[in-house]
C-alpha cells in the first residue's frame, strides 16, 4: 500500500523493457526499499536505464504467449507482498505492410489483446483481494479509429481498452483505480524507423502525463494532452474526409 508520502512500495511492469514504462518509473514517488518487478521476454540480460540503477529491481522472465505460466508468475508477484501498481506495457506493433499475414495477424491479436485480457483478469482479481492498488494500461490512440496502416494493431488496442473501461465500473467497490493511457506517436525503440505521425512526442513527456494521471487517479489520459481534443474530432469525421488524412 502507498505510504503516507504517497510512495509506491511495489510495482509490477508487464512488459519490463517498455521505454514508456521505464520512463514512468522515474516520474513516480518511490521509497528506498521499493521493489520494481520487470516482467518480460528474455529480460534477464536486459540493461535498465542508468537513472534506475539505484532501484531495487527484480527481473521475471515471462513469455506472455505462455498464458498459464504467465498467470502463475503474476500470481507469485502478488504472493510475496501487495502490489501497488501494475503497468501493462507489452505490445507488438506488427508489420504495416503485411499486417494481414496470418502469423503476424495472430501474433498481434494474441499478444496485444488475448494475453493482456487474461493478464488483466489475473491482476484485477488479485488486486481486488488487496482492496488497494492501481492498474495502468498503456493503450494507444490507434485504438480510437482504425487507420489503414495499423488497423490490426488498433483493433487489439481498442479491445483491451474497452475491457479496462468495463473494469473501471467495478472500482468503487474494490478501491482499485484503473487508468488508460492513450499515447499518440512516441519516439521509442518500438517506433524506430517509422515516420512519425502528427503530434509525435517523446517518452519523458508521456511519462510525466502518465504520472499525473496516476496521481489524480484519472480514467483516461492522452499524451500529448492536445489529443484529448483532437481524437474525438477525428473519431466523428466522415470517412471520406478521414481517408484524406489517413495516408
Amino acid at each position, binding site marked *: 500500500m502507498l505510504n*503516507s*508520502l504517497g510512495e509506491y512500495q511495489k510495482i509490477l511492469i508487464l512488459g519490463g523493457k517498455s521505454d514508456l514504462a521505464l520512463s514512468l518509473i522515474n516520474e513516480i514517488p518511490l*521509497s528506498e*526499499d521499493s521493489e520494481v518487478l520487470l516482467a518480460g521476454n528474455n529480460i534477464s540480460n536486459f540493461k535498465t536505464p542508468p537513472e534506475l540503477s539505484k532501484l531495487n529491481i527484480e527481473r521475471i522472465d515471462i513469455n506472455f504467449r505462455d498464458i498459464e505460466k504467465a498467470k502463475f508468475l503474476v500470481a507469485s508477484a502478488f504472493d510475496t507482498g501487495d502490489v501497488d501498481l501494475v503497468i501493462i506495457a507489452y505490445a507488438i506493433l506488427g508489420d504495416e505492410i503485411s499486417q494481414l499475414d496470418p502469423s503476424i495477424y495472430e501474433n498481434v491479436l494474441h499478444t496485444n489483446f488475448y494475453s493482456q485480457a487474461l493478464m488483466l483478469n489475473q491482476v484485477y482479481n488479485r488486486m481486488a483481494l*488487496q482492496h488497494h492498488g492501481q492498474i495502468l494500461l498503456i493503450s494507444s490512440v490507434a485504438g480510437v479509429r482504425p487507420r489503414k496502416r495499423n488497423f490490426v494493431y488498433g483493433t487489439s488496442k481498442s479491445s483491451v481498452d474497452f475491457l479496462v473501461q468495463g473494469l473501471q465500473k467495478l472500482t468503487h467497490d474494490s*478501491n482499485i483505480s484503473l487508468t488508460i493511457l492513450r499515447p499518440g506517436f512516441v519516439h521509442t525503440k518500438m517506433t524506430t524507423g517509422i515516420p512519425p505521425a502528427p503530434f509525435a512526442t517523446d517518452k519523458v513527456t508521456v511519462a510525466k502525463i502518465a504520472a499525473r494521471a496516476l496521481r489524480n487517479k484519472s480514467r483516461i489520459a492522452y499524451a500529448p494532452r492536445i489529443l484529448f481534443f483532437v481524437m474525438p474530432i477525428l473519431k466523428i469525421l466522415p470517412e471520406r474526409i478521414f481517408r484524406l488524412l489517413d495516408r
Partner: protein
Amino acid sequence: MFQMISGWGNSIHSHTVLKKFENDLILSDVVNVRGAIPRGLGRSYGDSASNAGGITIESSNSSEIKIDVTNGKAVVPAGLTISELERSALRFGFFPHVVPGTGNVTVGGAIASDIHGKSHHYSGSFSNQVLEIEILTADGIKRIIHPSGNSSKLFWATVGGMGLTGLILQATIQLKKIECAYVTTKEVRAKNLETLLETLIDFNKSYLYTVAWIDISGKYTGRGIVSGANHSVMNELDKKQSRNRFMSSKIQTFRIRYPFKSSAVNRFTVHLFNFLWFFKPLNNRVQSIQRYMHPLDGIQNWNVLYGAGGFIQYQFVVPFQEEKVLKIVIEKLKDSKCSSPLSVLKSFGSESKGLISFPMPGWTLAIDFPVGVPGLSMILRELDELVVAAGGRVYLTKDSCLNPKHMKAMYPQLAEWKNVKRNIDPNNFWQSDQGRRLKLC
C-alpha cells in the same frame, strides 16, 4: 461492507471491513485471506490499526472494571479508555502510573503501543504496570500471559507488538495510591535548546511528570517551555478542591468545523501560534490531574486542521549521548523551511522490555508535518538515517512511512519478535497495513 478508515494523521486510508468484537466471536467465521487487526479508538497516527482488504476488529465498549482497593490492582477490559480508567481509579483514590498525552486511547491500544507518558523518566512505559494480559491468539485460544514465567516471551512480544500477536481482551493493571486528583505544576521558559535540555534534566530530579514544548519555527533556536508536576498534597488544595479531592474533572470538549481541503497549519500560522504560545502565561498552580495529563483532549478533532491531506507525526528517540542529533534535526528543518506546532520533547528513563517497544533511555522528540510539505520525503529519509546512525528509533504508533530496512536497523530485537510471531501465528492471521509495509507479517 468495506469502509474507508484512517489513522489519526488522516494521511493513509484503508479499505477494510470493520467488525465490532463480541464475546462469542469465532475468528475463523469472520476472517478472509487478508486476516485481521485489532483497533481501539484509531488514535495511532498511521496504518497500524487498519487492514486493507481484510478485517479490522474494533474493541468492545465494555466499561466493566474491577478495582481491588486493598492492593490497587484493576482488571480492565481492553476496550476501556484511559480516561475511563482514570475516572474509575480516582473514585477509589488511585491513578495509573503511566498515562499518555491523550485519554482517548484504549487500554488494549496502550499495551499494543506500550505507550509512554510524562512520567517515563521515573515510571517507565505502560507495560511496567501491566501484571497480566488476556489475549486471543490466531488459533482461537484465549491465553493468560504474564511478564515473567512461561508466557513472558509472548507477553513481551505483545507489549509494543502493534496488535500483531493477537487481540487483547483484558488486562490487570497495578494502580498507585494518590492523595488527591490534583497536581501542582511548574513551568519555565527556556530561550534556546541547550537551556531547554538542561532545565528538563533538572526538572526530572524534582518532578514526577515532566515534558517540554519546543518551538520549531521562527529562528529555530529550540526555545520552549518546560513543564513539571507532582501529585498535590492536601495542604496545597483550596477549599473547593479539598471538598472534592478525588473528583475527576469533566473535560469540556468541542469539535472544530474545518471544511477546507488545504491545511490551516502552514509556516505563517505555525510561527504565529508558536510565538504566542511561548509567551503564554505560565502554568504554576494546582490543577486537575486529568487536565494536566491530557491538554489537547478538549478539542475532539484537532487533526482536521491539517486539511484533506492529513499530517505525519514523526517521533524518534536517540540516546542521551547523541544529544547533538536534536540540534541537527532542528537545523535540517530550518534549512527545509519546515515548521511544527506543538512539538514535544521529553527524556526517557529505562528501556522497555517489549521486543519492539519504542522507549529507550534518551531524548525523544515528536514533530508534526502537514502532508504536502515540499521535499518531505527527502527530509524524513534524512531524519531516518540520522536516527539510525545515532542508535535511535522511530515510534511505530506514530509511523506511516518507515521502510523495512530502517525498521530492522532501529529495532535490534526484531528477529526475536518475528520468531515469537511465527510461532504463535504461523499463518499470519493477525496482519495490518503497517505490518505488511514493514514486513512484520
